[in-house]
């Protein structure tokens, strides 16, 4: 499975990026919610990246979430949701 991949969905109103860990149960919940909402998004399984990619993605993640925690969802490059906050995710993506 690719560490960075585009997950297809019918809802493409927002540019959505998910920083996740492949082993994380809360990240799995987030992926499931996005799938249920049929949202298209870019999924980054951080733990699966090679070391160069990790360096690059770490800087990008840090800009949005200095605690470098997962899951982190970035909507349209400015709205950042840290953790599986179901209501916040729905509000950001359905609004």
């Amino acid at each position, binding site marked *: 499975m690719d560490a960075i991949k585009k997950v297809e969905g019918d809802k493409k109103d927002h540019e959505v990026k998910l920083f996740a*860990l492949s*082993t994380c*149960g809360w990240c799995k919940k987030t992926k499931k919610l996005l799938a249920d909402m049929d949202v298209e998004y870019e999924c980054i399984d951080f*733990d699966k990246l090679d070391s160069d990619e990790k360096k690059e993605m770490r800087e990008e993640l840090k800009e949005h979430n200095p605690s470098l925690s997962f899951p982190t969802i970035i909507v349209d490059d400015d709205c950042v949701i840290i953790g599986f906050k179901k209501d916040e995710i729905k509000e950001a993506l359905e609004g």
Partner: protein
Amino acid sequence: MSEKMREYVEKDADENSYYVCPDPDLYEDLLEGLVENQERYGYPSCPCRQASGLKTYDADIICPCEYRDADVDEFGMCYCGLFVSEEVSEEPDKLEPIPERRPPEILEAAMDAEEEPELEEGEDIPVWRCKVCGYLAAREGPPPICPICKAKADRFERFNFSTG
């Protein structure tokens, strides 16, 4: 493998008067994540945290992590939700994301490290003393949080055995 991990987790919960994750799907996912980390790193680091793969640097997030007691105390669950309080075990709706207690500097230092720190032959692992409660820990650096009284790392000092 997963059954062994379940036994390990349930035994630890039992011994420490904690309860395991009351959300069955999340519980299974977390156990699988622990097994995956055990296989790729050689130790079961927290499935919800990025590990460096260097045991010395990941020591504080090997399950059960050093932040568990403080998090169950404050939020009724550890960071990933594997261990919870009695209250949360009875009301699974209270299971929700909590803030990361592990200081990001620790993660960043771990990710920057390329190899295990070398201990010179004959060099002892330093002992750190919590200035608040007197707890002693032999490890490379002070624990991020005192497991006994929850004081932060900056309240620790290097403990000197010689008194003379």
